[in-house]
């Protein structure tokens, strides 16, 4: 759950829109490698990982390291209604609507610097821009009479990307310990268009647009310890200093800090495996908008991933798992599987990663969401597939 999650939940309560399009894609992945290992960005040893975990800036690589990524988010959503016979027994689920959207998004670009002449020993720096949330969502349907005559159409379109400009610095007073501090400025503009067009000209068409802006300043602190040469552990906290929302409602936003911890372990085997696990927690029940309780619940996530070097000099093969507890409702909790490959291309590293996450929920189970059609039984079956490519290179100085 990112900073935006709580804010957008508020919009969900007031906007009368499905949860998914408001939350967007929470927490865009930043590198394909971290995505493939359960979206474990906090323990990602790359310049992009150092933006989330400032204590990792020194371990992102000796010299100048560069990393850029971009990807696509594919969402499919099927809405069904239960069909009953005259005895009140259900005979099945009829498809009510099917929507699909595919949006390209920038993952981010980052650079880190460590261990070159002139820099104090043990100092690492990282800076860059990364995407945090995406709001690509399109929904449309035709409205027909009971005789299948076309009455009109309605459509919803939402767009916008939340990006964060951030920098990190870390220092290692000991070989086995790194400390890091970072800061970021997150901004977002989200546009929403709602349209209803009727064949009958006596019924007025509807065209509503809404634009909202968000700005958040965030600071981060973290430490990384290496208790043995095979184990690296890290923990940190991300605290929003000031957050403001402007749009249909203006006001300050009080969001609780995000605590994260993870470890990386090199077991030492013929596959040259690397195992990563992460946990994050945010007490979203304490979130406030303009002083009012947002009615959210505490959210957390846990992930684990493995990287293997395939025998015979093949590519690096990664897979992972993730669980996210939604701040909105239990039925929106989701599990994800991830996988990916990494290729070494004469000095450049090309990584590809993917995440798949299915979710099914009943509209009535999300209390803060009004239905599209009041009183209609509506089940939502959705899947999200994220594909990401990353290109990185390390330059010795």
């Amino acid at each position, binding site marked *: 759950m990112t900073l935006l999650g709580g804010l957008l939940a508020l919009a969900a309560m007031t906007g009368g829109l499905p949860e998914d399009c408001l939350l967007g894609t929470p927490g865009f992945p930043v590198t394909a490698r971290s995505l493939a290992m359960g979206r474990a960005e906090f323990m990602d040893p790359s310049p992009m990982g150092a933006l989330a975990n400032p204590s990792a800036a020194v371990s992102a690589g000796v010299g100048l390291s560069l990393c850029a990524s971009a990807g696509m988010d594919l969402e499919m959503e099927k809405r069904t209604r*239960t069909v009953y016979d005259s005895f009140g027994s259900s005979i099945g689920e*009829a498809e009510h609507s099917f929507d699909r959207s595919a949006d390209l998004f920038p993952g981010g670009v980052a650079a880190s610097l460590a261990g070159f002449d002139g820099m104090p020993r043990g100092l690492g720096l990282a800076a860059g821009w990364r995407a945090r949330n995406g709001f690509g969502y399109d929904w449309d349907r035709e409205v027909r009479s009971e005789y299948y005559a076309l009455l009109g159409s309605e459509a919803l379109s939402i767009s916008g990307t939340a990006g964060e400009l951030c920098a990190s610095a870390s220092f290692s007073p000991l070989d086995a310990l790194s400390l890091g501090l970072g800061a970021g400025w997150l901004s977002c503009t989200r546009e929403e268009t709602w349209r209803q067009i009727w064949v009958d000209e006596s019924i007025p068409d509807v065209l509503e647009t809404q634009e909202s802006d968000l700005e958040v300043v965030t600071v981060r602190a973290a430490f990384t310890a290496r208790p043995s040469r095979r184990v690296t552990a890290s923990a940190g906290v991300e605290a929003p200093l000031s957050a403001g929302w402007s749009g249909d409602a203006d006001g300050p936003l009080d969001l609780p800090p995000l605590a994260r911890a993870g470890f990386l372990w090199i077991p030492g085997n013929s*596959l040259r495996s690397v195992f990563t696990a992460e946990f994050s927690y945010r007490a979203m029940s304490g979130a406030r908008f303009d002083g009012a309780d947002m009615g959210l619940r505490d959210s957390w996530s846990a992930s*684990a991933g493995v990287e293997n070097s395939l025998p015979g000099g093949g590519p690096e093969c990664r897979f992972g*798992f993730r669980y996210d507890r939604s701040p909105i409702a239990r039925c929106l909790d989701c599990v994800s599987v991830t996988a990916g490959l990494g290729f070494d291309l004469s000095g450049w590293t090309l990584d590809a990663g993917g995440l798949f996450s*299915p979710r*099914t929920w009943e509209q009535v189970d999300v209390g803060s969401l009004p239905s599209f059609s009041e009183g209609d*039984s509506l089940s939502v*079956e959705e899947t999200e597939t994220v594909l990401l490519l990353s290109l990185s290179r390390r330059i010795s100085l």
Partner: protein
Amino acid sequence: MSSSFLLAILAAAGPFGRVDLNTATLEQLRALEGITDEQADSIYSRALSTGGFADIYEVAEIPGMTASSLAWLRDNCMVSPRAEGSLSPAVMDLMERLAVEDGPGDAAVDEWENLLIRPMPVNGLRHWDLRMLDRVSIVDAAAVERRLRDLGPVSGVASLRGSDGLSYYGYRNLRDYVATRELDLSSTDFFGGLRVTVDGGAGRSEGEGSLAARLDDLGSAIGDMESGGRDYSGSPVDSAALYEQLVSERDELAGARGVTGSVQRLRLGLGDRWRGGIRLSRGRWSTAGHGLLSGMDMGVISETYDVAKAFASLHRLGPLHQVILGNYRLSLNQGLLVDNADELMSRSLYRPRGLHPDLTSTRQAAFTGAACEVRSGPLVGYAFVSSAPRDAIMNSDGTPNSLVLSRWRTSAMAGALQETAAGGYGYFDLGGFLPCGTFVGAGALTVSWSDSLVPDPEFLDIPNDAEVWNCPEYSVMPQGDALSAWSVSGQTVLGGFGVEGEAAMQDNDAMAAVGGARWQNDWFYLLCSIRHYDLEYTNPYCRGFAEQSRFDDTVFEKPYYLNDPSAADLADWPVPKPEEGIYLESRFQVSRQILFPKVYLDVWRSIPWGFENYRFQGELEYRPVFPLRFRLKYKLQDKTKMQDLLPTSSVTHEATLRTIVLPAGGDYFEIGVRAGLVELTPNPLYTDDRLMSGGFLSARWEHRFTPGFSVLGGTTLWTTDGMSQWEFEDTGIDFLDGRGTKFYVTVKEQISDNIQIRLRLLRKDTFFPRNGLYRPDPEDQYYYEGDPGSPVRDFGDHAESYGINCQLDLRW
């Protein structure tokens, strides 16, 4: 080079003063004169990521390494041997196979996994110990004890292979669970295992018995009552109370939709003396909790642990073989007196006999309290006491109607009664002067409940509906607040021939008996078993051999005929149906190429109705060359059941052909096809729907990249016309309805000797065509809930479901 650095190099030096490439730090490697810094970095990285070099010549595989560098390293450095693992991939494979075997329940698999990690000391084995293993017969168990008694200890497990009477099949099934280690009661070796499993995904749960079906049944009953479709006047049912109960159950179960399941199971051990463990889990789609620690409320019911069990046990204290406090599992003899499993394994004579700690997913029949096993000379005894909550179907006047094993457990049923169970069993081992493996035993069980059971069908039967209540199995269910039973048992083994049996009597004079004989050698066995269960033998802990569970083919398979559809959970009541029969089973290795893995014939008679039934299944395997096997299985069953006023019979034919290919490198490929047909007795109820059919085509392939890392993929296409299909996937059984496709991918990796991870993704698409829905009569139309005005025409119901499962095992 500083002095401290020199000291560090010395610390990394091996016994001959050479630097150990497997343990040296990066700085130490960079300090070596014969290699460059880049080469040192590469050596360090390779040693770190692979766990070390097995041989110094492996260094040559590193890019950038020169012949002169290698020669220098060979003369000046060394590599230490890598530590051997505690668990081999072969053991991991076996654990996985156990987890998917058809037959044993959770408790057995738990126990076998423990034994794979810490096997039983072979030289102290008695036949009692071996009967807990799968597919180890009484003849095999007695043969091992006889071998040890007559010829003394063995120096290796393989020495058991030639024991008189021990079949190769039996030897193969026990060899992984025993070892030539000594029992060390003073040992303080600390070991254990942690398993974390997350079972999630999304989609609709379809089919009979699914949560969606239960919610649908409840909704239909509620709607029926709201529309005045049921007339309770003159009935003992308080319709207002029943209505409230139904609404409450529906609302509670609606909250269980889409719940992600999770299991955290921790087992600990200290030497051979102490064991302990705890399990906290929440099953998918479940609600109310159960277990020793079920009071641990996590805030809302959907986040309460579904099962919360724990135990501590002490072993080998004088004659006290073991004592367990907490949750335990007890299974004795033929399971007629006491076996507290949650399920009845049809047609299975194998059970993990004895007393075991219980961290399994079972809940309704779980024992919570204390139990002990005593061994003194020829005497073996068990004593136990348990006090645990039990679920019950409730009458609308608030009294408990019948005990039930809730599938979809709601507060309306969960923990409705407190049950106290106590008993004991004693054996006298006659192996000292009669053939080894001979014993006689006797024991008793008493069960009491905190409230009297009132199994009145009028509280369950919808008044004035089409169904005529005709269920003799229900009419004799336990009444009152107590029940007791006792049993006698015995067995003997003569060479390759063994006989065993148990007879039990309940306090209402009803009896149950199971007896069997077995003759075996290396290439053949023949097993014959007879059984009899009186209608009134209702002991809730009877799990004896049977073809059907008590409420198969009764009104409880039809929730829409019950006042409260949740009472349909009684269909899962794991007590044998009142029946008597004879069962013959054989395995015959004709030659190296031809094998009959299992052939059986069961002929049984339903006691309340007198219907006679039979079931035959034969399996033939042909192996023309080692990597190729063909398996043909054919099943024929003729079964009769009471359908309202008329008995109806069904004849089932089912044929399955599987082709298994084992290419090199540990890969596994299988393709299978099944076709089935059910023919029903002509009956006006079925009109022209008298034939049902179904079948599927499946394939799966496992590719092993290394012994510790493999990827498994499988797919199935099926079509059914009234005859649902089932198949075994890599992790369990799956039921197939309608027509559809599915595929799954499983990644398995043994990351280290102590950590294993398994990740699985499944997608299943099921299609249910819904045609001919047009109804001219407005009162008879199909409709959408909440949108009754919209017309419903033909549609195709496409149910997509995804299963995501991740399991992490940590052992030390």
